[in-house]
């Protein structure tokens, strides 16, 4: 009987080898020409893992020039693709996600024990052997900040035209339109055409879309939370600034509608498990402005209640809203000068900022907490659609 000896295929050690001349094709196919949709259904952040496996092989062969060259070309490639798609939320998310993942890989497999606490024994075998890439990690971290800023800019650009009409002008509570102050007119925030108004659902729909894209692209959950905190701050600032400049918006009914809208946004955050992001806290000035519009504004006790409540609004902002406050009808009185003076006297010891309006372009500093992956490099295989057949699995 003939015995056939089957040779066991050599184990894949999670490294990818390529010829130096193929570096340009690697960057083109994996970075500059890659469409995120090509990789739908594959492991999130696949380009980052492939790049790490290439770096690892160059490290394994002790080829510092190859490591330098690949990392520099990768970083320049990412910058090029971001410049070209500077208004594309999905593309920007895709590269934020991949840049962060590459940064996490360079930490997780650095050999630094502080980053190895969650590694399996197999993952520890996949650490870099020859080179310390700490300085490149700093470059990738700086690049991640740039990409994050681009992402926020794109998202704000999409949201901003909706904010004033959705938050202040749209009437979703039935029966409120009958109690609008006289002279109330719908205005458009940025469009010349007055018909371009949005309802709150438009904002929520846009937020859903942002959230789905970020989750699909495998963006770190901590970064997603920071994106929403930043966007909610902007909604708060743009809405409050408009309120502070528009007499027709300072009424009891707008306060009512505003509080309702904010509660819908809070509910959306809870529904998407984003309530621990600090997003609601950034809305506090607007929440208090809505309450201020609804509170009674007559007696000494009313003044005290307002002063106790409005801690996130400056004296200047409180006084401005009271001055602009427009009674609903002939039965409601205007806020008296003496009432406003009482408020000013009670708040005189506060050390408030001087400016009336909020800086709606303010950015919170972003943090990218280390997020190791449970994937092992030898479990990752390269789909044919990437056209990287020149990479050899080692």
């Amino acid at each position, binding site marked *: 009987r003939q015995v056939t000896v089957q040779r066991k295929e050599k184990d894949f050690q999670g490294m990818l080898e390529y010829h130096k001349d193929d570096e340009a094709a690697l960057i083109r196919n994996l970075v500059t020409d890659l469409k995120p949709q090509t990789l739908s259904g594959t492991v999130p952040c696949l380009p980052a893992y492939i790049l790490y496996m290439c770096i690892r092989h160059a490290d394994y062969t002790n080829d510092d020039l190859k490591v330098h060259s690949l*990392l*520099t070309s990768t970083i*320049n490639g990412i*910058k090029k693709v971001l410049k070209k798609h500077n208004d594309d939320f999905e593309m920007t998310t895709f590269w934020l996600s991949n840049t962060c993942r590459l940064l996490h890989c360079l930490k997780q497999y650095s*050999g630094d024990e502080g980053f190895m606490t969650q590694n399996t024994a197999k993952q520890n075998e996949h650490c870099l052997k020859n080179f*310390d890439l700490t300085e*490149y990690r700093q470059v990738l971290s*700086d690049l991640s900040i740039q990409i994050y800023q681009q992402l926020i800019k794109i998202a704000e650009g999409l949201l901003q035209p909706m904010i004033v009409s959705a938050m202040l002008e749209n009437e979703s509570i039935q029966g409120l339109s009958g109690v609008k102050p006289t002279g109330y007119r719908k205005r458009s925030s940025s469009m010349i055409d007055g018909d371009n108004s949005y309802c709150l659902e438009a904002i929520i729909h846009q937020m859903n879309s942002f959230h789905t894209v970020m989750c699909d692209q495998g963006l770190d959950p901590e970064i997603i939370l920071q994106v929403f905190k930043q966007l909610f701050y902007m909604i708060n600032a743009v809405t409050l600034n408009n309120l502070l400049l528009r007499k027709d918006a300072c009424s009891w009914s707008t306060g009512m509608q505003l509080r309702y809208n904010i509660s819908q946004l809070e509910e959306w955050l809870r529904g998407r498990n984003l309530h621990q992001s600090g997003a609601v806290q950034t809305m506090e000035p607007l929440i208090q402005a809505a309450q201020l519009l609804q509170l009674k504004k007559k007696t000494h006790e009313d003044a005290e209640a307002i002063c106790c409540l409005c801690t996130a609004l400056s004296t200047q902002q409180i006084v401005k809203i009271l001055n602009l406050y427009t009674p609903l009808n002939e039965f409601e009185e205007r806020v008296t000068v003496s009432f406003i003076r009482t408020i000013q006297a009670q708040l005189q010891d506060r050390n408030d900022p001087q400016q009336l309006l909020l800086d709606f372009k303010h950015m919170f500093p972003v943090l990218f907490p280390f997020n190791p992956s449970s994937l092992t490099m030898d479990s990752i295989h390269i789909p044919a659609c990437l056209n990287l057949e020149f990479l050899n699995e080692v």
Partner: protein
Amino acid sequence: GIRHPRPRVLLKAPTLAEMEEMNISEEEESP
């Protein structure tokens, strides 16, 4: 005894801005 791994060699990296400058000058050179 305990085997100590060989220390890794620090690869110096240019900053992001320096990398961009190098990239621009390379693009200018090659039409």
